[in-house]
């Protein structure tokens, strides 16, 4: 079923239709939330809250646009709020990346540790770029910043990551 049809049903009060959206995007949402928050438990909470926010805000959603980029804004708001409530938690403490076939485990470990030590915003832009392959325009939409800011933020985040990798 198309997202557009599902969303229309949800707007007409069909709560069960929302299940399709949750099941379609939950893996992606949990992956993104884990990269931001660092713990699976917090990521599950944030993703759950974001889906509830989305259900409540569906009336404001422009259904001619794709659902996930809009949802991502709600998700990251939830993640940032959650991270601020837990100020002591500033880094990743769980494995959020896995090695592809042929990868050296020490490289993956180094990357994991380097990502762990980045701040949330840098980690977010770098992982969205490399894991999700988003273009600068898509990053600008997801992060709600101008394209020029995407370029500079990504540049400095990569530099920090590189510095951590070389340490």
């Amino acid at each position, binding site marked *: 079923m198309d997202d557009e049809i599902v969303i229309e049903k949800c707007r007409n009060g069909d*709560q069960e239709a*929302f*299940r399709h959206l*949750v*099941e379609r995007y*939950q*893996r992606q*949402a*949990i*992956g993104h939330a*884990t*990269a931001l928050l660092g713990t*699976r438990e917090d990521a*599950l909470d944030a*993703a*759950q809250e974001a*889906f*509830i926010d989305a*259900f*409540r805000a569906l009336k404001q959603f422009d259904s001619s646009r794709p659902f996930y980029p809009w949802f991502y804004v709600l998700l990251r*708001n939830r993640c*940032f*709020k959650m991270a*601020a*409530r837990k100020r002591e938690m500033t880094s990743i403490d769980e*494995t*959020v*990346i*896995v*090695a*592809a076939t*042929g*990868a*050296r485990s020490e*490289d*993956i470990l*180094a*990357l994991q540790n380097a990502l762990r030590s980045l701040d949330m915003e840098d980690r977010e832009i770098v*992982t969205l*770029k*490399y*894991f999700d392959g988003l*273009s*600068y325009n898509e990053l600008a939409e997801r992060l709600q910043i101008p394209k020029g800011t995407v*370029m*500079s933020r*990504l*540049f400095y985040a*990569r*530099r920090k*990551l*590189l510095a951590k*990798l*070389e340490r």
Partner: protein
Amino acid sequence: MKTPTCELMLMAMMAAADGESAPLSTDEINVHLSVCADCREEAVRMQRVGDLFQHASRRDDAIDLWTAIDVRLAQQPSRIGWGPFAVVSLLLLVYKLVEMLPEAEPGWAIELAPLIIFGALLVFLRENPFKINTELILEK
């Protein structure tokens, strides 16, 4: 020796490598690279980041969120209509009319009526006006 334009050059190189429109032309970048050893070196080092990510992917676990979300959505409070607010407005209007009657002397207790009406509305809405919402600090 790095010049003030080095960062811009590196940013432009990064954008070009990402397949994006760069703020500088390829010729400008190449001319700069031919004379700036620092930028050449940094460009090579930066490539390592991309190479590492090529061999990694996001951890992807299958977890079902729907069960919990379904329960939460079912617990949503029903939307409050305009009814309670109309009642409160009517009560306040009656209070004001009573207060304005020239020969009426309702006594000091009537002065508390607006406070009581407002308090009753807050109780009905389950709102605590003294609650500090720490989450608002993070609204962007």
